[in-house]
């Protein structure tokens, strides 16, 4: 149920990327999709009654899997770096062209 909700969020983010006219909106939708995918991964390894993955707390079969958590921290960092780089480029685009519209950016044929 929660995974289906998170999948819906991913698709909403993709829908936003497909139809947004503003480049900042595209960046935000990319971020939304990425956050939802990370949520899917973290939820998919959790089961009812799972314990924290600390050695000695409980038997190993009852702990939640710590590997996805470590991997998804890296994925969050990568998403944050891409977002910050994209925002930096969009600021320079605004200074160069005076507009944040995708259509305007693609139609200009100047050199």
């Amino acid at each position, binding site marked *: 149920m929660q995974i289906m909700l998170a999948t819906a969020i991913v698709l909403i983010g993709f829908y936003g990327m497909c139809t947004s006219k503003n480049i900042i909106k595209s960046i935000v939708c990319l971020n939304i999709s990425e956050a939802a995918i990370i949520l899917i991964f973290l939820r998919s390894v959790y089961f009812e009654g799972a314990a924290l993955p*600390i050695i000695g707390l409980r038997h190993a079969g009852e702990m939640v899997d710590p590997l996805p958590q470590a991997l998804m*921290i890296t994925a*969050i*960092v990568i998403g*944050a770096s891409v977002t*910050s780089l994209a*925002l*930096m480029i969009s*600021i320079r685009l605004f200074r160069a062209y005076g507009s944040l519209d995708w259509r305007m950016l693609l139609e200009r044929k100047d050199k």
Partner: protein
Amino acid sequence: MRLSNLLVNIARFIFPFMLMFGLYIILYGDVSPGGGFQGGAILASAYITAYIARGERIFEIGSLVLLEKVLYVLIVAMALISVLTKGEAFTSFIPSGEPLEIRRLFLIAMNVFIGFKVALGITSLFSSFVEQESVDD
């Protein structure tokens, strides 16, 4: 735009607690949820809150960028010390025979460096966005 007095005073009050909380998350990153990146983001948000409350920067951009680059070199150097001591790259340089308290030092050190680098990076990005100045990348 004038900010309300309530907002400014609460931001001033809460600033040291945010710094403390960020440092806590960095330093306990190896045994509790958190770590370098997360604590660094919290520290950066503390500085951004102070910026918003005060209306002007409370740090020097030039020295931030320099410190960030020094930290980057330190992080790469920490990862590579293990080439000399253990013959393997990108792992802890402390030999495996040592007790747990000494082996934790590597993780804590990496967390501290990464946390401060992330905080400095996000803060300098934010100030370059807001103040329309360019920071050399």
